[in-house]
């Protein structure tokens, strides 16, 4: 097979069928944009988790005099209860999951509240006695948080156990929802892109039926008859994918890196580097679908 010949055939096919090829490019562009957005949302979730989960701690709030009887039936925590909790934190059952822990007394908690405060400071309405002494636990393995929470929840002298990670649940839920939405749109669009490719190849084959007829008669191999059509579909899909990546990079650079990220510096947004990291997968997905769709189409319409 002659490569320059195949290239010329592809070129001729695209020229003769320009509007259809353009429509494949556009539909693939839109669908792969959504694929890329879905992937970036998942990376964003990963970024949030790795950034915040490392900092997130488990707080074991100890009973004080002000807790309700339901939660702390025996009132303020006793010295023995405190020792039991400290003992459990050091026990061999939990040490594999715990990176470090620290104790914050009621006075220290009050002090921190004072330090944190702006004009509307809750500390001025409270006494240290009303606050909870707290064990702050940093985990070695974030995935074992539930285990640690469970271990202390029912412990006498413990008012409540809070996993700071749960503060992120709503935003992660939101991002997951957005991923699902983008993914669903992408699926529908990819399906229509595949159908469009099949139709386009069929039209393209019909437009070149004279050439194909002659190619068959003179003994061109099936591969050399079909390859130009498959390449036509592949080229259109890759072009669409390239546009999708370009658009994503543009949006991330202009609306996240240059704008939102400077205002919300704590959020650790996805960057253009992430866009390019998912690019091979986005292009690969587009390419596989294009080759499958045009391959099936040529197989059905161009058999020797």
């Amino acid at each position, binding site marked *: *097979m002659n490569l320059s010949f195949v290239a010329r055939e592809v070129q001729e096919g695209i020229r003769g069928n320009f509007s259809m090829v353009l429509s494949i490019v556009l539909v693939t562009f839109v669908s792969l944009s959504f694929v890329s957005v879905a992937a970036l949302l998942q990376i964003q979730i990963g970024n949030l988790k790795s950034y915040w989960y490392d900092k997130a701690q488990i707080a074991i709030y100890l009973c004080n005099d002000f807790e309700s009887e339901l939660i702390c039936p025996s009132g303020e925590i006793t010295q023995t209860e405190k020792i039991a909790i400290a003992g459990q934190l050091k026990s061999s059952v939990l040490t594999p999951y715990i990176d470090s822990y620290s104790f914050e007394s009621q006075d220290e908690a009050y002090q921190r509240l004072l330090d944190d405060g702006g004009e509307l400071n809750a500390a001025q309405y409270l006494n240290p006695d009303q606050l909870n002494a707290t064990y702050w636990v940093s985990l070695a393995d974030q995935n074992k948080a539930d285990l640690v929470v469970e271990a202390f929840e029912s412990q006498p002298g413990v008012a409540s156990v809070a996993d700071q990670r749960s503060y992120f649940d709503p935003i992660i839920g939101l991002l997951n929802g957005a991923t699902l939405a983008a993914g669903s749109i992408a699926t529908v669009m990819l399906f229509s892109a595949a159908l469009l490719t099949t139709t386009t190849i069929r039209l393209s084959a019909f437009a070149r039926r004279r*050439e194909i007829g*002659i190619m068959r008669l*003179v*003994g*061109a*191999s099936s591969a050399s008859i079909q390859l130009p059509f498959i390449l036509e579909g592949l080229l259109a899909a890759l072009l669409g994918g390239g546009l999708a990546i370009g658009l994503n990079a543009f949006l991330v650079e202009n609306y996240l890196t240059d704008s939102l990220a400077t205002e919300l510096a704590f959020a650790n947004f996805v960057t253009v580097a992430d866009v390019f990291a998912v690019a091979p997968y986005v292009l690969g997905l587009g390419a596989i679908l294009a080759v499958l769709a045009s391959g099936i189409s040529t197989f059905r319409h161009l058999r020797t």
Partner: protein
Amino acid sequence: MIRLENVTKTYRGAGTSALAEVQLQIDRGEFVFLVGSSGSGKSSLLRLMLREEKPDSGDLFVLGENLKTLPQRRVASYRRKLGVVFQDFRLLPNKTVYQNIAFALQVIGKSRAFMETSVPDVLRLVGLEDKASSFPAALSGGEQQRVAIARALVNRPELLLADEPTGNLDPDNSKEIMGLLSRINFSGTTIVMATHDRGVVDQMQRRVVEIREGRIVRDAETASYREVPSGPVGISEDQA
């Protein structure tokens, strides 16, 4: 070169067989006319030899291949060993004469060097060396058929199949094409030509195989289109 043994072919939905138990042998270097009216089965026979279709039963050997069992992936390489021309020329209107012929070599991956020697060669053979850069629309019917023959011959096949090659041509052009086919046959290429052009067959005096309703009814060396006028079918044909 070609051998058919009890070849039968029936098309779906057709009541009768297009070909029924056909026995035929054609040797290397022969020039054979397949004659018969439309629908007699001669085109079906050519399609089988082109391996566009397979026989329902019987064996069909062409150029050393058993076309009944030839696997699909080897059909392309089989077709490279033969040439074929049709009544409607089947040239590509957007390519020049030279490009039309070169196309047949390009698509089977021949080198540029091979093309540059064999295309002018075959153009000289068909007497169109001065029309290499013309487009088909600028040529007469006879010239277009000569281009088609050149394209069929450019890969130097041993066998040339021709389906009504003079069907669209006036008598002068037909004569010219037949002269060309004779020369090609004289140089060693086996030719099987389906036709119902009585003048052409009578002029050539070659082997004639007559097919009627899917059966060979006559096989005669150096014969005319029809030596003995036959029954009502034949008469109505002649009038048509």
